[in-house]
């Protein structure tokens, strides 16, 4: 297992440049979106997640290890679900917060580690996570 602090620092570096136009162009070609993804989930797979989770208007969804908001913000925009994004690197959460405002979607952003989620028991209808456990 690689050092967790190094990983968090590397992701922080990634988020500092992720809004650069060249990076956004590349991400749109590869993933099909431009949220600053750090996972390998494509748009087609995000739609598959939404179908499996049966996401709909007003459902409470938790995206663990959300990074800059992919795919959580997309899922909120396409399904009407209320998505809560959680992650540790604040640079990624800042990028996510800007995108939530730009896209005018219903999302909360909470700085938290995935193994100590600061939420009450049994409050979410669905939980998703992309390439965090790996």
């Amino acid at each position, binding site marked *: 297992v690689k050092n967790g602090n190094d990983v968090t620092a590397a992701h922080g570096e990634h988020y500092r440049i992720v809004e650069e136009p*060249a*990076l956004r162009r*590349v991400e749109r070609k590869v993933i099909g979106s431009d949220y600053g993804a750090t996972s390998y989930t494509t748009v087609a797979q995000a739609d598959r*997640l939404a179908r499996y989770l049966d996401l709909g208007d007003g459902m409470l969804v938790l995206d663990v290890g959300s990074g800059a908001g992919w795919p959580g913000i997309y899922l909120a925009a396409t399904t009407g679900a209320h998505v809560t994004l959680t992650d540790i690197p604040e640079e990624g959460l800042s990028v996510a917060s800007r995108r939530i405002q730009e896209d005018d979607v219903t999302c909360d952003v909470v700085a938290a580690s995935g193994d100590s*989620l600061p939420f009450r028991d049994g409050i979410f209808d669905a*939980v998703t996570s992309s390439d965090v456990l790996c």
Partner: protein
Amino acid sequence: VLRASHRVLKPGGTTVFAVIAVGDDLNADQRDEAIAAGPPHVASDQAYPDLMRAVGFEHVETADVTTEYLETLTAWWREWETESVDLRRVVGDDEYTERQANRMRAIRAVQDGLLRRYLITGVRA
């Protein structure tokens, strides 16, 4: 993470985890290469479906999306080559070279069966 996710789900709530895992039946050298080539925390010793059942998820099912993972990895490498002039300016020559080398190492690891990607679903009882 699995235990915490299970706790915050409503009874009957659903979950999907996309995970990248070390391939099955690898020798020690192959396993070392998988860990080096893969993303952080790839070196889990237990199969994820078993871990999910252990924390209380039911109806655990696994879809192998390794083929799509390889396509996406390859596309990242290819598109970074296409945009290399602008990307070298953004991240610097050293960082650009390192990222592309890491991607190529991961591509080879997936092609050799050392790394796999799964979508694992489950329901809280």
